[in-house]
């Protein structure tokens, strides 16, 4: 285990070396490597540990893995106000090229959570042989309403602030990150592609949707136990963890490889 961790490599790549990546080498036994596409905003930080655990698990199973940050997020160059959805999708392609070059793998699969799943799905045709999508965003407009609702709740959260903050202090931000009209408009158009055979759908088992299983808008899905939930404003700084999710992704990767 120790020897493999030592081999993991943090580095910058892409045009201008603006993107941060973390490569987890493995023998690429079946000629398949896996790209991990992160979600955006606070969700990216909350998923960091889970993505690392997943990368280690996949590499141990013989799949080279690349984690990376989109421009304007994580350790990549750019500020939060520069996050651009079109660029995020382009960064998936750039990261896929990097992973292919480093691993020598013939086929690339991708895993993504939330908007990370959508970014991978948009890049599928060009660069990826398949996508495992966890809680992909079905309706971008609904996502924006939810992020706005959470920001409104944050504003008056007296467990966080000594007193409620004025609108001016919280506007054009989503849970810790600045946003722009451009990004709002871009994300408002996000949706799902038609069901495809090369997509595996994973869905968190939310407490208020306990019985939802088997199908989801006509798609075959697998439900996963996850805590805490994405929209839990009281636990905004807490990591989202799920061993069942890691097991499910590893199983799906092996099926699709």
């Amino acid at each position, binding site marked *: 285990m*120790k020897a493999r961790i030592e081999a993991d490599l*943090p580095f910058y790549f892409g045009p201008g070396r603006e993107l941060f990546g973390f490569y987890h080498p493995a023998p690429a036994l079946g000629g398949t490597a896996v790209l991990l596409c992160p979600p955006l905003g606070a969700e990216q930080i909350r998923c960091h540990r889970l993505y690392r655990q997943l990368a280690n698990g996949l590499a141990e199973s013989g799949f080279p893995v690349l984690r990376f940050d989109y421009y304007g997020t994580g350790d990549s160059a750019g500020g939060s106000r520069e996050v651009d959805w079109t660029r995020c999708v382009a960064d998936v392609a750039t990261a896929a090229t990097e992973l292919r070059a480093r691993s020598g793998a013939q086929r690339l699969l991708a895993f993504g959570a939330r908007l990370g799943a959508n970014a991978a799905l948009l890049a599928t045709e060009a660069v990826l042989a398949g996508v495992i999508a966890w809680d992909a965003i079905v309706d971008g407009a609904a996502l924006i309403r939810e992020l706005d609702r959470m920001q409104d709740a944050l504003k008056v959260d007296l467990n*966080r602030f000594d007193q409620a*903050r004025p609108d001016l202090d919280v506007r054009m931000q989503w849970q*810790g990150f*600045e946003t722009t009209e451009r990004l709002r408009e871009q994300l408002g158009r996000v949706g799902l592609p038609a069901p495809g055979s090369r997509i595996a759908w994973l869905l968190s088992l939310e407490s208020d949707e306990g019985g939802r299983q088997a199908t989801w808008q006509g798609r075959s899905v697998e439900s996963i136990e996850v805590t805490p939930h994405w929209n839990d404003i009281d636990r905004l*700084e807490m990591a989202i963890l799920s061993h069942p999710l890691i097991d499910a992704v590893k199983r799906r990767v092996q099926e699709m490889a």
Partner: protein
Amino acid sequence: MHEQAFRFGSARHLVGIMGLPPVIDHGVGVILLNAGMVYRIGPFRLHVDLARRLNALGYPTLRFDQSTIGDSGAGGKLLARPEQVVADVGEAMDLLHQQTGCRRFVLFGLCSGAQNAHSVAHADPRVVGAFFLDGYGHRTLGQRLRHYLPRLVKASVWKQWLTRKRAASGPRPPEPAFVVEPLPGKVVGSQLADMLGRGLKLDFVYSGGVSRYFNHVRQFRECFGRLADHAGVSVSYFQETDHTYVLSGDRQRLLDHVAQWMTRHFPATRPG
């Protein structure tokens, strides 16, 4: 931006990002410690924004993950956590020295990061300054009076309390893991006095998010007495701000504060 990713440390178990200014000529580097369990980019990317701001002012920076946090693994030696922290930050200073020539270092730590910065600043002579954000402090009589007296006479507080009681919506979820374990005030005061005696510059910033134990700038004096008058000490209380600086305007204000403090105490002769 000129940033480089490193895997470093005696067991190559640590991962960090070094930020470099165009010109390095004053020999002071800044090291950013993990805030709680948040990995090296900091809460809401605070450490990334701060490091880049300092790079632009001419200071090299290293934001890194301590052992077993973020992307860093275990060190391989059987050390107690406090010793491991001192060892990790020591290796971070070694790396920054090798890459930039810096021999003096300023530490930046929020919450448990402040606690760790305190330990390292006390133990390692290469540390010449530190930012302690929501670090050590303890409840005082003044803190209790300022906290409870206004609430006794405020109708809205009683109304809110009654509403909560009626709603009975179950127990509140556990607090996020951003808690500084109390250390006896006398021990903290003694260690701070040692640091100041060695010439360290120390900046204490408290947020409204920790009003449960600190709620006014003069509380520092209530906690640590005459240390508050020392020329090497500065204290601020950002009452409206939460513990993790979730709002971008609050983060900007903190960045301005840090930049001004650095420029005042460790001026860069040729800013980047």
